């Protein structure tokens, strides 16, 4: 019988394939992470910031822009990996038959899926690097701790990419991705302590939000973006490791069921 996980370093070849395609289209791909934070900072900076003024977050008074800047990075990490491993992976799998072609080479199914997820995380890192550069111009990020946002982007990207890949394994057609976006991504975008502190939520909602990965990613980004080193960060990292231990095998299982005929 086949071993349950047949994974070697050959997965980097799948990653490389996506990187080669990315280099062909880079001028399209790098614009959103460059412009999006500018739009947000404009809207919130000139609009909302004047109304809100200062936010009280974990006993600290923070200007509103400084409060949301790390959250924007966290959202960007989530979106890049999730969209890469849903829409983009689905196009490769379903329309371009890329995975089927790869299956006829020494690559194993596990390497194909791992390469895809690691690539999704890489897109999060690239987007974070671009965004960090933009946001830092406004003096909203502390260094050198801010540089740790890059490995955080990779870790968070793995988590959201894995979730994306899980949905890619189960949706019937590409339109159905709207469902997890509507039920999972959008609520997280709004309620994970991104634009207002979670203690303003009703208690049950705050508990619910605590289970969501974006809540933890936002906290990591805030602490590191502001230069607050804290033991609590290790707990957040642990959350993602446990998250991956559960969802990575799950994504692999549904993708195997989908791809093997």
């Amino acid at each position, binding site marked *: *019988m*086949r071993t349950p996980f*047949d994974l070697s370093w*050959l997965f980097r*070849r799948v990653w*490389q*394939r996506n990187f*080669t*395609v990315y280099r*062909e*289209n880079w001028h399209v791909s790098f614009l959103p992470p460059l412009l999006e934070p500018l739009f947000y900072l404009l809207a919130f900076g000139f609009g909302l910031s004047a109304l809100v003024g200062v936010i009280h977050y974990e006993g600290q008074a923070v200007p509103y822009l400084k409060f949301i800047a790390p959250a924007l990075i966290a959202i960007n990490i989530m979106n890049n990996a999730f969209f890469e491993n849903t829409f983009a992976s689905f196009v490769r799998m379903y329309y*371009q*038959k*890329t995975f*089927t*072609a*790869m*299956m*006829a*080479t*020494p*690559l*194993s199914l596990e390497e194909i899926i791992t390469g895809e997820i690691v690539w999704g995380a890489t897109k999060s890192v690239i987007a974070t690097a671009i965004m960090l550069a933009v946001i830092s111009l406004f003096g909203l990020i502390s260094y050198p701790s801010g540089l740790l946002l890059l490995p955080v982007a990779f870790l968070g990207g793995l988590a959201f990419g894995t979730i994306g890949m899980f949905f890619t394994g189960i949706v019937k057609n590409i339109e159905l991705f709207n469902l997890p976006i509507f039920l999972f991504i959008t609520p997280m975008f709004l309620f994970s302590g991104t634009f207002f502190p979670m203690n303003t939520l009703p208690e049950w909602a705050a508990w619910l939000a605590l289970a969501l990965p974006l809540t933890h990613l936002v906290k990591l980004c805030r602490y590191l973006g502001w230069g607050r080193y804290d033991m609590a960060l290790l707990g957040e990292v642990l959350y993602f490791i446990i998250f991956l231990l559960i969802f990575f095998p799950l994504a692999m299982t549904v993708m195997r069921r989908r*791809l*093997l*005929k």
Partner: protein
Amino acid sequence: MQTSIDAQHLKKTYGELVAVDDVSFQVRPGEGFGILGPNGAGKTSIIQMLYGLSPLTGGVLKVFGMDTRSNMRAIKARLGVCQQENSLDPDLTVRQNMEVFARYFDISLPVARERTQKLLRFMALDHRQDARAVDLSGGMMRRLVIARALINEPELLILDEPTTGLDPQSRHQVWERLEELRANGLAILLTTHYMDEASRLCDRVVIMDHGRILVEGEPAELIREHIGHNIIEVAEPTAELRERIREKQWRNEDLGHRIIIYVENDLQMFQEISRLCGMEGCSMRMATLEDVFLKLTGRDLRE
């Protein structure tokens, strides 16, 4: 002698549907081997088992002497596979498609480049190597898929309906290239429902239907055995002709508006039949693999 493929009692079911039902066959090194059959006969299922896309429900499948259940990676390193659907990277150029594919086999870049040039020349694609795959014609895409499948210098090339959907010019060009590969000693396993393709490229064929092998043999031998040398086709046969066929006990297939009579090299018989129905109504031709195929798998549509 070691076989390239040794399939013993292969079985594949999808829920209730039995796609492959107790199929056994061997492919020898250097051989051209064809799996023929109408749509839904189980051809593609067998191909997918060979490169691990489709796990076996039952039976044993060995490629290069290795079991597909335990040695898939080593097997795939020595196979070239052209799937039925084009799976090129549309955003990449012809050359990039080759080089990216070479990486899946861990082939170093200098070697990949050298082989790419050689193969693109061989497939008459070198003048388009900087074109994006999405801009190629159907025939060129197919040739690129074949060139790509050769990047690891396989010992066995597997082709799933290599010329389906191509225009006659492109088909002949693909055949010529494949014949040249065959002449250089490359073993080929192909599925097709074009009988002329099988006759041209295969030393041996099996004809399948409903997941089972009906016959196995060399194309010429199968024709001789199941049809004979020649075929006389009669359009709108008269009652008189039908009477004569019964009387003389000629082997035939009556399709209503058309009768197909299997004959040995017998000019007299042809003259006799043409007297009965006029020269325009009947024609004599060499029997082909298609006659065997239709005789064995029937004339019902497969949809």
